[in-house]
Structures are given as C-alpha cells and as structure tokens.
C-alpha cells in the first residue's frame, strides 16, 4: 500500500447518453483519500453507470476522469470493483480468486497463497474447493469482495454491496468496508440504503435522474439537505 496514491479522483463534467436518454448529466465529483464516499440515490438514478465510468469500464460522452498524476491504465491496476451482480467464473471458489490475482502477473504459488488469505478475510476459508456458482447469494457477494481485495487495490468501487443480502450478511459486509479503510484503502460505494449510508459515509453524492443534486460531507448533507429531492429521499418519500 506504500506506492504513491492514485487519489484524489476528480470526475469533471461527466455526461453519458444512451438511446436518447441522459443517463449522467454533467457530474462533478471529488473523491479524497481514505474518505468513504457514498453515491446515494433511488433506483435508476445512474449510480451503477457513474461507478463504471469512474472505474474506466464505460467511456463518457463528455467530461474527464482524472486520477492524481497517473495515466488511466496505471491507475486502473490499483482499483477493483465489486459489481451489483457479480460475475463469477465457472470454476472453484479458490480458482476465481487465483485467476484475478494471476492477471496482475503474480506467480501461481503466490497467487494461491493470496487467494487463501482473501477467503479467510471474508470468512469463506472452508469453501475454497466448492464450485463458485453453488454458493448462496450472500456467499457469492463475499467471494466477489475477496476477489477484489486479493488484488490489493487502493480504491474499491462497491456497487450496492449489500442489496439483496440478509441483515447478518449485510452486517458482515459492512464490517469489511470499515476494515478496508483501516487498511488505508478508499471505498466508493453506491446504495439506496439510507441507514447504511449514514453508518458508512464520510462524503456523500446524491444522485437523482443522472444529476448530482448535492455533494459534500455526509454529516452536513444529512443534517441540512439543500434540495427538496434529498430532503424527500431522507424522509423516505422520494421514490423516483
């Protein structure tokens, strides 16, 4: 973790259209080092798209994604993403992580060792030989976390990391997110779960219909929403 930081991350005026629909509309956002940034918003607000643009998976129609100092490709190697719907390879739990680590050019024996460490980290240590797709939804989510963590990223994009998980599984994922920051990593996560946002967010971006209506420190936004949309969302009254 001692390599020079790729943060802060600046999104400048990001716009994305698809089939005539404005999915992201002139978004500006700053992610500081070791501050958990939460992208909050209702379904369809564009949270997943925003994370994918920031992670370099989708090219925006206009605007720029700037990682401090580093060109895109070098910065990408220091990031990992846990998808809303994780895609697990049709192989064992262990092999899924080994594949991800090997892609970083790590030798096989070392990759296997790291994979075991990562499985222990998320509490899946005794499932190493199971076919990944035979895991339950919550276990798959944890495996997806382990795979991201095994790459030793500085920045983690977490897209709805606890959606569709039961309370116990959500709790254990939240513990991992807290732990990530202690390790000096920076998480950028999206959610529509207010309670989780309150527990985890240092900084908050409120996304609504592709626009970042508010951004700033979470404490401030929760205490004093400036837009009627965020105020309504905080009261659980904004559904669209």
């Amino acid at each position, binding site marked *: 973790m001692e390599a020079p930081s790729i943060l802060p991350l600046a999104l400048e005026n990001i716009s994305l259209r698809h089939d005539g629909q404005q999915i992201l509309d002139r978004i500006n956002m700053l992610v500081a080092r070791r501050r958990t940034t939460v992208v909050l918003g209702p379904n369809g607000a564009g949270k997943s798209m925003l994370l*994918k643009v920031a*992670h370099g*998976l989708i090219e925006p129609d206009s605007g720029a994604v700037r990682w401090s100092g580093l060109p895109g490709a070098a910065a*990408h*190697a220091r990031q*990992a*993403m846990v*998808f809303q*719907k*994780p*895609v697990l*390879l*049709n*192989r064992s739990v262990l092999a899924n992580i080994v*594949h*991800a680590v090997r*892609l*970083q050019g790590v030798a096989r024996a070392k990759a296997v060792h790291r994979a075991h460490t990562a499985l222990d980290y998320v509490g899946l240590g005794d499932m190493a030989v199971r*076919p990944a*797709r*035979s895991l339950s*939804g919550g276990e*798959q989510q944890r495996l997806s976390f382990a*795979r991201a963590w095994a*790459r030793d990223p500085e920045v983690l994009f977490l897209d709805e990391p606890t959606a569709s998980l039961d309370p116990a599984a959500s709790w254990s994922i939240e513990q991992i997110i807290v732990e990530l920051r202690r390790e000096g990593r920076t998480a950028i996560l999206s959610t529509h779960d207010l309670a989780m946002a309150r527990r985890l967010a240092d900084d908050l971006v409120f996304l609504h219909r592709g626009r970042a209506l508010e951004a700033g420190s979470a404490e401030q936004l929760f205490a004093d929403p400036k837009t009627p949309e965020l105020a309504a969302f905080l009261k659980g009254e904004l559904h669209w």
Partner: protein
Amino acid sequence: MSNLTEGFAAAFRLLFGFDADLWEIIILSLEVNFAAVVLSCLIGLPLGGALAVYRFRGRKAVIVLVNALMGLPPVVVGLLVYLVLSRSGPLGSLNILFTPGAMVIAQAILVTPIVTALTRQIIENLWQDYREQLTSLGSSRRRAIPTLLWDGRTAVLTAILAGFGRAAAEVGAVIIVGGNIAHHTRTMTTAIALETGRGNLALALGLGIVLVTLAILLNAAAWMVRERSMPETALIAANR
C-alpha cells in the same frame, strides 16, 4: 430379403471375430477423424474466440462466411485439396496425395468452420456477461479468450463433438484425396461406398453398423455433456 439377413450375420461375424481387415479400416478412420478434429480445434477455438471478442471492420462478413463454410460440400473440398496436392499442384512436392495425411487436411477443412462458428457463438454470449467483470480485473481481450473457452467448456465440447460427427460421416472428401487404397487409405465411409458396388455386403454392413453406433455414441456424449451443465446454467439464471 435373405441378402439382408445373410449380410447382417456375416457382418457380425466379421465384427466380433475381430476380422483384421475390418478393424484396420475402423482404426484408420478414427485416427483420421481424430487428427482432423484436433487440427480444427487448434485453429477453430482461438479463431472463434477472437471473432467473439474483437470488433473490427468486416467482422460481420467474416462471421457470415464462416457460417456459410459449415455447409461446404465434401466432394468440392476433396476436389480442391486434390488439385492443391496433386503432382502439378502448388503443394504437389509434398507428395501426400493418397495418404492419410491428405485425408486429415481435407477433413480439417470441413470441420474447422463448424468448430469456429459454434465456438464464436458460445464465446460471444459469454463475453456479453463477462466483459465488464474481466475488464475490471485487468484482463485484455486477448487474455480473456482462454478464460472464456474454459468457462464455456461444456458448450465448446458439444461444438467439438459436432465437428467429429461431420468428419466421421463424410465420404466425398476422403474418397477423392485418399483414393480408398486397401490397407492404406480405406476408411469406413469409402469402404461402404465402394464395397457395396462390388457386392461385398458383409464388410459394408459391418462398417455401417460401426458408423451408426459411433454416431449414436457421439450424440449421447453431447447430450450427457449438456445435461451435466444444465444445473449450472439454471444456477446462473437464478442468480441474475
């Protein structure tokens, strides 16, 4: 009528008496088919994978062409390979016309489009689901091809079995480039085609029985492979 029953009786005597001539033909056929399929896989698997993941101008035309080549008439392939390998042809100096090697080449030309086209379809479907995840993990398109081939292994195997079926059943190509020379290039299909005309019904029927059995076994194998992969596919669907 008595012709038929006598023929079957003689055929079974040959088969289970382990008639040397008959088994020599069976073994040579399988060797040629197998070598042709291996050669086709060496070309068709990476080519099909590349057509699935790369985007370039003329890609659609190449796909249409490969699909069309699946229906190549064996006699035409035999004729073309004959012209290329004949003494005055461009590769005449190799001196392999009327050898098993020539038959392998001709059958590989018939089987390669099948393996390529079916593989492309399988891998393209997988790539749609895997693209963002693999890109996030730092996998290049090129590096993704072996990953996808392995993840789609059951479907890819059925494609290979389909190619084997084509090689085992065709007669037009091997008869032209092999010449049906006894103890040298006589395969099951060429023997049936020519021995029937000469009234050697026992041999022809015996070989026919073997061919039909082979076709059934291939289909059973493909069916079992698909069956085995069913629960997996169901699981993936359930997790979407």
